[in-house]
């Protein structure tokens, strides 16, 4: 289908998407860059002084930045590890002969459909409440002292909630991949004398490389901007213990009304996301051919 007409038409058909996405990306980005070099405070309207890189200086040297950068990376990294490792294990389990597998699938996928604000609130109150929560009851029944999750391990609590939301995604994609694995290949490996572990490492795992890549890429996109879970549970606290970059910039812009500072932070976030993206594409991108 390679005629001049179809090529021309192709360009016309793609144009709206490209144009819209380009505007969607470039206009706010340029504005962010512009604001980031201004002294721009919503509480002090009318003052738009050019101050060069001062906003960047303040943002980058603010201890909150380093703390939130660390929190962001810990959050993304932990959730990725938890979902990929547990997801693989659960997928392997569900690939076994299981009676009623379809029903188990329904239970496993359910968390993926729950909106972040709901899952955060349900976990925070119904499950993790230090006195009346379900976990507290389990702890006391077993003779332990219940944990005050959001006070003692706030970031870990957030990680737990986010991991619960994304585990179904990883599990089911990996399960689909496992089910597409040729049974004959596994049988051939068994005939060759491979036992369960070597079959897993030499046949199954390489087969999962591509889907794991997809899981990592998609999850990273969403995990870098985790917001609602923090917004409704800890509000970034205690202190800065659960503030990630997204939440830090949000609070600077819409709580402290420091447009210039938030813009500088926003650009830093874009740069960080790009660095992560480049590293990811280098590390895992070779598995992703269209």
């Amino acid at each position, binding site marked *: *289908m*390679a*005629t*001049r*007409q179809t090529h021309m038409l192709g360009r016309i058909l793609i144009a709206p998407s490209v144009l819209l996405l380009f505007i969607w990306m470039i206009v706010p980005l340029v504005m962010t860059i512009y604001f980031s070099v201004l002294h721009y405070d919503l509480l002090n309207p009318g003052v738009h002084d050019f101050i060069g890189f001062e906003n960047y200086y303040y943002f980058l040297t603010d201890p909150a930045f380093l703390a939130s950068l660390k929190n962001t990376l810990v959050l993304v990294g932990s959730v990725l590890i938890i979902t990929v490792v547990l997801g693989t294990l659960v997928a392997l389990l569900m690939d076994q002969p299981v009676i009623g597998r379809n029903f188990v699938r329904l239970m496993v996928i359910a968390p993926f459909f729950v909106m972040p604000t709901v899952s955060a609130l349900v976990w925070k109150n119904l499950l993790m409440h230090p006195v009346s929560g379900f976990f507290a009851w389990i702890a006391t029944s077993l003779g332990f002292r219940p944990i005050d999750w959001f006070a003692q391990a706030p970031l870990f609590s957030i990680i737990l909630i986010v991991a619960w939301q994304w585990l179904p995604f990883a599990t089911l994609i990996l399960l689909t991949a496992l089910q597409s694995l040729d049974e004959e290949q596994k049988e051939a490996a068994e005939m060759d004398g491979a036992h369960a572990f070597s079959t897993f490492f030499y046949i199954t795992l390489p087969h999962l490389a591509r889907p794991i890549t997809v899981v990592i890429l998609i999850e990273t996109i969403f995990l870098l901007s985790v917001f609602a879970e923090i917004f409704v549970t800890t509000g970034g606290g205690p202190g800065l213990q659960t503030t990630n970059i997204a939440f830090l910039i949000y609070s600077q812009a819409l709580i402290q009304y420091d447009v210039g500072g938030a813009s500088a932070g926003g650009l830093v976030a874009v740069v960080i996301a790009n660095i992560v993206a480049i590293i990811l594409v280098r590390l895992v991108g070779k598995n992703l051919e269209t």
Partner: protein
Amino acid sequence: MGSIQLQDVRKSFGNIDVIPGASLKIEDGEFVVFVGPSGCGKSTLLRLIAGLEDVTGGHILIDGVDVVDTPPAKRGLSMVFQSYALYPHMSVRGNIAFGLKMARMPKAEIDRKVNEAAGVLNLTSYLERKPRELSGGQRQRVAIGRAIVREPKAFLFDEPLSNLDAALRVNMRLEIARLQKELGTTAVYVTHDQVEAMTMADRIVVLHAGRIEQFGSPLELYERPANLFVAGFIGSPRMNFVEGPDAERLGARTIGVRPEHITVSRSGDGWKGMVSVAEHLGSDTFLYVEVPGIGTLTVRTPGELGLREGDTAVLTPDPARIHRFDANGQAIAS
């Protein structure tokens, strides 16, 4: 009416010249087969005629009108694809009628034409079925029905039989040839199977690396191949080629003899060799004979001769049926 003329048609993808320049004229009502090994550009040439690809240069004339800038739909051609390309979500009726609907033909007329085409192709009882409920042969018929119902200037067939099993292929071959003669519509047919080409075509275009090696009737190609490539490609089993003193004696670089034009005896004058393999097909026997200094020669003999592996055989070519080729591989006229 439906004559197709190619004038120095060229096609390149990037830097690769797929068709360096092809010219030929297909007469109205003619059945022309493009044949050649895979990758020779025959399908590309067909798609250029169809308008599914743009020419890089040259002209394509249908009934004398240059159609290079005409979109496929307006060229008045219809095409049968290798995969049949049936619309999976439409019934057989819907498939056959689609082109007529696109042409905004009145419903009553569409129905009449579809029923007529279905009758010709024995599809009447399947009209309401979906393609996935049909056998390979029936799908093939639907694809053909879709092509004939539009009464095009010419049919284009792109290896239409390659997905069928051997027995069905022979049947469909006959059916397509018969249908084309009945309708009298020009047909261009692409295949890599020289048996299909020989049995169906009025004239054959042999393509090799994008070039037209020869354009002629099946018998012409068999009896007077223009060059080594055509000589080797047409005919089964393949023509034997002999170089060296035997060829030079006849004033040629290479001489070619078809397996069926060699007589075998147990003794006498000729090429002496040892039978390495004997294939018994019943009606014929193919002998592969190792001749020192020449190589393996294939011989086709009627019936059984009692020659076995390891026996000595003497091969005598029919002097009137020896093809001579010069250093460039071109045939030397006798």
